[in-house]
């Protein structure tokens, strides 16, 4: 079933996704949760760029005498995803700052205790 995945990079993609998800599930600090989300996002960027590449390719900048190029479409999508990820993370961090102003803490346990 998994015989076709010979490249180590795919395993790293799965590993990074699971590590980030573990952080999101178990951490109680909101900033650590944001870091976990960033790692999950980075694993998907790595998957897209790895999918665009097969050994022996050149970067997709056309010059004479080169026949094999990496696929430019997933790379353009990755570029879009990076910039959007940065701006949405900035919005998330501003919400965390606002949460701190309101509760005086960024720890989910303490916030839950105050809510009660």
């Amino acid at each position: 079933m998994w015989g076709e995945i010979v490249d180590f990079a795919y395993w790293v993609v799965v590993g990074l996704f699971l590590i980030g998800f573990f952080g999101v599930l178990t951490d109680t600090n909101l900033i650590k949760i944001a870091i976990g989300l960033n790692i999950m996002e980075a694993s998907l960027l790595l998957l897209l760029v790895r999918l665009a590449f097969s050994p022996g390719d050149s970067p997709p900048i056309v010059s004479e005498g080169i026949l094999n190029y990496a696929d430019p479409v997933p790379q353009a999508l990755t570029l879009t995803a990076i910039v959007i990820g940065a701006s949405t993370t900035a919005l998330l961090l501003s919400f965390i700052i606002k949460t701190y102003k309101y509760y005086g803490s960024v720890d989910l346990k303490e916030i839950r205790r105050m809510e009660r």
Partner: protein
Amino acid sequence: MIRKSVALVILAILGLLVMGGLAELPLPAERMSESVTSRHILSEGVSDTGAVNLVTAVLFDYRGFDTLGEATVIFAAAAGVVLLFFRHDLPTSRLGLSSLAKRSIMVLAPFVFVTGLYIVMFGHVTPGGGFQGGVVWATLTILLCIVYGTAFEWRFINTRTKTLLESLGAIAFILLGLVGIYRGDFFLSNIAAGFRAGVPGELTSGGAIPLLNLAIGLKVAAGLALIFYNMVKKDVG
């Protein structure tokens, strides 16, 4: 402890599912030979758009409308951050770092600015483009804020300038897109709307792509700098 073990069980199930999904993916070489889009862009991209860098060609020509949507996301994020902190005040600190740091950053800043400009303007010839160069400009303003203190920022590159630059970038992008409709073609069409393709590999090639790069660069730089300065703001009371 219970929380962590439950999380590990969930992760194990998810991991098996994800690996099963990855096993179904086609290998890169197979996918390339099947994908009509990729093959067309690789063989006809340069003659279609005049840009040598195919990633930029995809971003600003084939999927230009997508890039406009992305610029809208950045605008929405910046607007959200500004709305969250609009009651707060920028602390006017004149302290900054030592005078040694201030001197050397003044030597360094023009070079960083020109590097950003190069990355933006040569986006269709070499790796780079509006997004990367725009982020370089944004980090330049962050550097100036850290070294000189926020009073410098307040006097020279204040919020009104950044809002103006961001709106200017967005309006320029849309106007360049409307040129296509005016010439009787689609929104954001490039060579078909009468922009000159030029000699591939030169600065003036690529039709409207360098101008679109500049507009996106201004917009990204102003948007991200706006986000940073609004997060630095202090609670007034």
